[in-house]
């Protein structure tokens, strides 16, 4: 139970509420529960069955805010400046301090003059949906909680560096050891900046880096195991070795390009391409290869290939009938999230020390805003009516996305293009996007989104894990400059709180401020728990049986 408190806390009740509970328990709540009606748009409302409009017991009016006393069910109104019959009621009857707001089904204490909260009341309200009836809500959620936690640990545990096998770098005179390991330029092989930019990001994705550097894809074993000479993971392994070899002269990922073109024939051509498309295609191919050789008969949801283990998350889609509220839920895996740019105009307070003229205050977007847009309820058009089992006919509906399971590495793809069907052309959107260096994904989780849909009640929702892994840190940003048809990709990497610009062969260091002002296209976040120990912090890397540059040293370093 305490784990759930991490996502929200249960506020302390006032002493009046405590006294009420001691005397009355939840009988009052259960009575109120029977009066709760809910429509799709109106949320929870208290409605008397006989008359539609509740009226104040004192004045028979229905203006202002109406409250129902929990003890005697007397309805009274509260017109703030003029008359407060509700307050009068609590003053005239001892012990009747707690009432329920008719409009919102919220508890109110008239002694404290404040809204108060009680998990038992929220539970009573939620049970109106029939939620509490299925095997008891605690039972269902508790069981699921344990299951999901175990799964998450399994996925991540071998992607942490193993401290028991300790080694030290061989002394390579060319390696500038004051610079972070693995920092190395990539030669542009002819319009391949889209590939280089993605490779740079992947080279420094902690779980992916750890996987390859700890030799979990062994090239020799792979050659023996599969007759297929093409292996993208093997080529990735070569690139990882090259990048972390200590050699700082730019590396040419030619073999990788050659393999990738042989595998992805439809994308094989000498021309500029889309970095996001390349990333997805590459992960796809890695998955296919591993599924063929290592993990046959696995479906996408539980796939153990490295691509899925690192990038795969789960999206939840709820489609709700606007008439009766019936909701259909589906889950689908995803390797990344594509976000539309939200529009928001900056306010004066955001630009310190600047007189903002109308022309200067251009609309800017925020990553939080884009994620809000992604998870906001979207009314489907009237031409998209879906069949509702509750109503037994086609109804208009509302769709809402949320994230059921977060990946280890979160890749956010910013859709910087507008397509005009009229003019049959696409245009690039250059608008700036604010993105945080630390991102908490809690508000976009299914549990948060669903909870909010039901009024943020204190209630155990499905998927309500104490997910400490909702906090992410950025480690790579891929930017695009230029136009839709032709431009240039550059990756910015964050290593040990320094930012490095990786422009093909050129590696330079840049200020944090420069990164914040970039026009981002792909933003890569990794779970905080996975990036606290960088390669340098551990000090050494696990044993490589190939014995390239690694020299075993007994004892600690």
């Amino acid at each position, binding site marked *: 139970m305490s784990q759930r408190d991490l996502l929200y806390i249960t506020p302390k009740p006032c002493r009046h509420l405590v006294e009420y509970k001691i005397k009355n328990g939840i009988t009052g709540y259960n009575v109120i529960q029977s009066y709760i009606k809910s429509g799709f748009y109106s949320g929870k409302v208290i409605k008397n069955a006989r008359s539609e409009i509740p009226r104040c017991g004192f004045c028979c009016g229905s203006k202002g805010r109406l409250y129902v006393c929990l003890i005697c069910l007397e309805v009274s109104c509260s017109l703030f400046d003029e008359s407060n019959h509700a307050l009068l009621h609590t003053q005239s009857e001892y012990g009747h301090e707690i009432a329920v707001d008719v409009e919102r089904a919220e508890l109110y204490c008239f002694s404290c003059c404040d809204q108060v909260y009680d998990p038992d009341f929220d539970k009573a309200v939620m049970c109106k949906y029939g939620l509490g009836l299925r095997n008891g809500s605690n039972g269902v959620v508790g069981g699921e909680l344990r299951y999901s936690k175990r799964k998450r640990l399994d996925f991540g545990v071998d992607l942490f560096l193993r401290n028991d096998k300790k080694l030290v770098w061989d002394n390579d005179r060319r390696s500038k050891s004051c610079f972070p390991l693995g920092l190395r330029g990539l030669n542009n092989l002819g319009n391949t900046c889209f590939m280089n930019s993605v490779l740079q990001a992947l080279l420094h994705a902690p779980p992916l880096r750890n996987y390859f550097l700890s030799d979990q894809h062994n090239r020799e074993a792979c050659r023996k195991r599969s007759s297929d000479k093409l292996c993208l993971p093997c080529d990735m392994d070569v690139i990882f070795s090259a990048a972390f070899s200590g050699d*700082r002269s730019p590396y040419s990922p030619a073999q990788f390009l050659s393999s990738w073109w042989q595998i992805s024939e*439809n994308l094989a051509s000498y021309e500029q391409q889309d970095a996001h498309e390349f990333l997805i295609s590459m992960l796809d191919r890695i998955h296919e290869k591993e599924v063929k050789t290592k993990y046959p008969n696995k479906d996408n949801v539980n796939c153990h290939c490295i691509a899925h283990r690192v990038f795969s998350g789960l999206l939840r889609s709820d489609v709700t009938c606007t008439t009766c509220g019936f909701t259909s839920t589906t889950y689908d895996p995803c390797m990344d999230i594509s976000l539309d740019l939200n529009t928001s105009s900056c306010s004066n307070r955001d630009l310190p020390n600047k007189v903002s003229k109308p022309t200067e205050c251009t609309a800017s977007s925020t990553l939080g805003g884009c994620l809000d847009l992604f998870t906001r309820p979207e009314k489907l058009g009237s031409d998209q009516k879906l069949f509702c089992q509750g109503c037994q006919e086609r109804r208009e509906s509302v769709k809402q996305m949320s994230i059921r399971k977060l990946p280890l590495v979160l890749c956010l793809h910013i859709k910087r293009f507008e397509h005009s069907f009229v003019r049959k052309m696409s245009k690039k959107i250059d608008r700036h996007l604010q993105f945080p260096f630390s991102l908490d994904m809690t508000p976009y989780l299914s549990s948060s989104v669903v909870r909010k849909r039901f009024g943020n009640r204190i209630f155990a929702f499905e998927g309500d894990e104490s997910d400490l892994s909702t906090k992410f840190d950025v480690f790579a940003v891929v930017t695009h400059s230029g136009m839709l048809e032709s431009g240039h990709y550059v990756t910015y990497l964050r290593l040990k709180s320094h930012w490095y610009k990786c422009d093909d062969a050129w590696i330079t260091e840049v200020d944090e401020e420069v990164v914040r002002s970039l026009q981002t296209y792909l933003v890569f976040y990794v779970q905080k728990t996975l990036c606290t120990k960088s390669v340098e912090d551990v000090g050494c890397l696990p044993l490589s049986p190939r014995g390239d540059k690694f020299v075993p040293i007994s004892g600690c370093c």
Partner: protein
Amino acid sequence: MSALNQDNLSSNSQLASTFFEELLDSVIVDVASESHRIARLRLDRNLDEEEEELRLSAEARAKATDPSNSCEANSKYVVDIFGQTHPSVANEIFDCMNCGRSIMAGRFAPHLEKCMGKGRKARPKSTRSTTAAQNRQTRSNQGSTSSSYSNTASLNRLSNGSPNVGGNEFSNGIAEGL
């Protein structure tokens, strides 16, 4: 007659005004109640951090657009952090893994394309990312309107990825477990 109309008008507008005020009050309390719950349940924990990030971002932008600042992001490179310089076309020489010829790095891709046979080019295959093939006709450096994991009818949204969005049926699945 006109005087009567005037009275009607003013009482109507008074009535309208009253209704509006009531609605406004109701909405204000609604928002207050909702925000109160969010604040009490500490669902808005990260507000401070978020504001800090926004502030830093705004400052960075202001600095970047300030003409007095040197455009270091776009300046020509002299040396990289390792002290190296690089030509505009990569001049490392290696052997092509297809034909064995010595090729200069910066010209490898166009060479490989020809080397692997012209048949590699522009023939859409029915792979997972069929839309990628479609997009190749209007080839752009970016601007693919979909990715293979988010194929939907609606170009603007990442759907749940399943191709049968249109055929969704409702069920009472609010508290579904996985």
